């Protein structure tokens, strides 16, 4: 009995400690983001004396965040939309049709997942420069589509392959074209997996840094992760303001997660990442 109580206490303690460790840093930045740098330097771990929500407006206005934010929105939404459609088409095709080379193509696309980015990034830079797409949002969007394509195809193919063949036969009997079968039958049925892919890709690309830093130079085309880095440099020792800037970058993703976490987990449980 005593041992039981002890184990219980130990487990509880571990859970409490891990929770503090996992969530503490975010809470800390959230606190700093509402305090002035002076207050922060006097007592780094105190609660705000005065909740300075106006700092968010200041950070937003002084940092060019509106531009970075808009760029991130344009780039991420476009690339997610394209990669979802392109990936779904390929995945559907690989899952549904039997043809020589099917598995070879699947394996080729899939094996790209383990490709280290070093192997492509330098040449991608050269290629985009040749095409006149270096330092353009379109160039970045195309690259984002390419790097997220393997993951998208992989997750969707797994799901499409489990759609019962009867469904397609029924569609054929109803006189659907192959194209219509994809859009009106396969795509809607695969919605849970599509949702997972969309959410995952959105989060991943929203936070992407390496390709953006290499492929974008002009300040007016920077995405948010680059913007944060620049903002940090501009503000130097103004920790309070930097924290506000960090929070502005974090909040959208947390909101997306808060709304869609169930969907994401459902999708993953349903076999997407299993």
């Amino acid at each position, binding site marked *: 009995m005593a041992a039981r109580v002890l184990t219980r206490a130990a487990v509880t303690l571990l859970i409490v400690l891990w929770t503090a460790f996992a969530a503490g840093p975010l809470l800390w930045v959230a606190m700093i983001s509402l305090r002035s740098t002076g207050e922060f330097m006097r007592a780094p771990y105190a609660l705000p004396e005065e909740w300075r929500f106006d700092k968010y407006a200041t950070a937003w206005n002084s940092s060019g965040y509106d531009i970075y934010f808009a760029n991130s929105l344009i780039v991420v939404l476009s690339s997610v939309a394209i990669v979802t459609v392109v990936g779904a088409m390929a995945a559907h095709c690989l899952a549904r049709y039997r043809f020589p080379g099917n598995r070879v193509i699947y394996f080729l696309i899939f094996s790209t997942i383990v*490709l280290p980015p070093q192997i492509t990034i330098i040449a991608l830079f050269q290629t985009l420069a040749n095409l006149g797409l270096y330092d353009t949002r379109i160039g970045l969007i195309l690259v984002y589509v390419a790097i997220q394509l393997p993951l998208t195809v992989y997750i969707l193919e797994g799901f499409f392959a489990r759609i019962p063949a009867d469904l397609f036969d029924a569609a054929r009997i109803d006189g659907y074209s192959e194209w219509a079968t994809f859009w009106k039958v396969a795509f809607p049925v695969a919605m849970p997996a599509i949702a997972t892919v969309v959410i995952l890709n959105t989060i991943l690309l929203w936070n992407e840094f390496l390709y953006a830093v290499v492929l974008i130079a002009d300040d007016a085309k920077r995405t948010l992760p680059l913007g944060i880095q620049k903002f940090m440099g501009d503000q130097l020792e103004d920790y309070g303001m930097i924290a506000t800037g960090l929070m502005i970058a974090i909040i959208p993703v947390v909101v997306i997660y808060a709304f869609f976490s169930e969907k994401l987990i459902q999708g993953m449980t349903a076999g997407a990442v299993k």
Partner: protein
Amino acid sequence: MSTTDVAAAAPVRASIPARLALPAERPAWAAIIPFLLPAAVFYVGLTAYPVVRTVWNSVHEVLPAGDIFVGTAHYAELWLDETFWRAVRNTLTWAIAAPLLEVGIALLLALALYAKVPGGRFLRVAWFTPVLMSYVVVGILWTWIYNYDWGAVNVLLRAVGLEDWANPWLGTTGTALPALILVTTWMWTGFNMVVLLAALHSLPSEVIEAAELDRCSWAAKLWHIVIPLVRPTLLNLLVLSCVGKMKIFDLVWIATKGGPLWSTETVSTYTYKRAFEWSTFDLGYPSAIATVWFVIVMAGVGLLTWTLRQRQRLEY
């Protein structure tokens, strides 16, 4: 999150019976080609071609004015490049240590939530949040946490009377890499936990209940019953985490830039430095780095897949 962290590993996935059930008929190329074409264009143009071009670069001096063929000169130099091998060692250390930590802790946490701890929903969200932040944000945040004067780690140490242990964690050669590995563990454990929890929930509950009846210790239960049951998920997560760490760039770039004394230099940061920071505009040498690393990674993945296959064959 790096792009492929989330991809599960193919080798361990079971084949899909639905496809096999398809009628064996002549391939409908008219339907297949339009469906595949867009993906193929992206794949060939922005993945396959760059790989080939990188390999081509690696035997040239690639300067803005033009390319000069140098044969294997870059490879010969690379063989003697201490910094490169240092970067390889660091990256491999990271890619081996981090998955074990992340997935190990995640399994324990998932079991705790599976045992219906009060507030499970809240905990699941709280533990997951780190992975939502970008490495840039995480890098800035953790340089603050490791700050010598007012960072949380040293403040805590001083608070419990261990003042002598206070240390500039990211500035000391011995601690910088472990400190960064801890950051990735902090970031990814929650993600792994959520996936594992989902896997646990999808197990038939009788199996685990049956184990409850046996009076074996929890450690034995864990080892003999739970781990074998979720083994495919565990393996997927380990491989996934490993692949992600082999690419790590942003975090190091923001937090230490590979210092001090190259102790946190990774292959990604070194390639980037040589390509875009070094005081030459040559892209050939960094391409050689990329090529060699590509071979190392592919060999590693191949070996891993092969060992896992062998083991599976032995067991079944």
